[in-house]
């Protein structure tokens, strides 16, 4: 059965279309399978920020590994927000330093998930974000702060 999100007053089910951006190509098929098993439809699985492809596929959810993409995380999230303004953007990151969840949220992520999350927690976090508009993994210290210079370094160092 396909998972459905309801929007506004309408109860009509909406298919959840997922676009994955995961440069760790070895793992991308497992994300695809995880989402498929959850009833989502994976419409794109990309190794880099192919914004035109994402725009074309019109995903409901963009799942992006912000530690390994070619741009620093805050810029990447802003670009994604601009490219697919109506999508629920889910940032997947190993960083759990103070306020990082808030930085990602303000850069455009609706959902911020730590890489310590289990597969079922990933799906639950996305479903929560689809339902209420936002989800930040409780593993993050969610105090607000402004992006610092450190935030503009990519995770490839």
């Amino acid at each position, binding site marked *: 059965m396909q998972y459905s999100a309801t929007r506004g007053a309408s109860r009509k089910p909406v298919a959840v279309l997922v676009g994955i951006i995961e*440069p*760790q*190509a*070895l*793992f991308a*098929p*497992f*994300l*695809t*399978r*995880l989402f*498929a098993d959850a009833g989502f*439809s*994976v*419409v*794109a*699985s990309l*190794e*880099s*920020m*192919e914004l035109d492809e994402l725009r074309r596929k019109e995903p409901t959810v963009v799942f992006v590994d912000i*530690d*390994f993409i*070619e*741009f*620093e995380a805050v*810029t990447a999230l802003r*670009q994604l927000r601009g490219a697919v303004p109506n999508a629920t953007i889910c940032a997947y990151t*190993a960083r759990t330093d103070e306020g990082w969840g808030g930085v990602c949220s303000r850069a455009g992520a609706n959902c911020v998930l730590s*890489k*310590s*999350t*289990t*597969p079922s927690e*990933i799906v639950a976090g996305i479903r929560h974000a689809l339902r209420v508009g936002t989800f930040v993994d409780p593993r993050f210290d969610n105090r607000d702060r402004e992006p610092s210079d450190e935030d*503009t370094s*990519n995770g*490839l160092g």
Partner: protein
Amino acid sequence: MLTSAYLQTVTRESQPVQAKAPVSRTFIIEAQALMAKALSQMITLDPSLLVVGDADAITEANVRTMRPDFILVDIDAGQIDLTEAVRISRGVLPNVKICALSIHLQPDVMQRCLSAGVDGYVVKDVTPSELLRAIKSVLSGETYVDPRIAGRLLRRRSTNDRYPDPNELSSREVEVVRLIVAGMSNKEISATLHLSEKTIKNHVSRIFSKFNCTARTQAAVHALRTGLA
């Protein structure tokens, strides 16, 4: 919608189980919970490999408990000190084989790993079957390195520093590509480097030509994967 044909090729059911086959005990060091699960699933597709556990770091205690024949270490996530990890592992099990797993296609990163004492270096864009081949190669006593990086190293050595690689970027081009990676436009790069926009355009064209690509994103990806940025 994508089909999972790729995954179907690696389903556990597709592999015959040989009850009496000798198994190599494999220990996964992976800070990403999902990735640990994925690696475990991939490795156990091979009946000669048994995943005895996973952890986000190597400690003397967990090596003693797991008694692995082979350790696969993801060096990208977490704070892995590979030299220390190798020292701890070999201190407990002198013959244990260790392979590093990384997203980096940079020869320097691979060399650092080999210098730390690992037996193999695998890049994360390989297929599951290539990963298994690498593991078995290391278990058989060979050193496995990604052939793309090995080829690059050999080419670099063969030029013997006297003949510069025509595809090697100049120092200015390296500066430009790093600013591309930072998400800057030509105009912003020109302001940062105090050069005209036309000059930057020329540099970008030469970078594209040397990288054999046609877009800034492709150039940025290439620069990151080859360690230029």
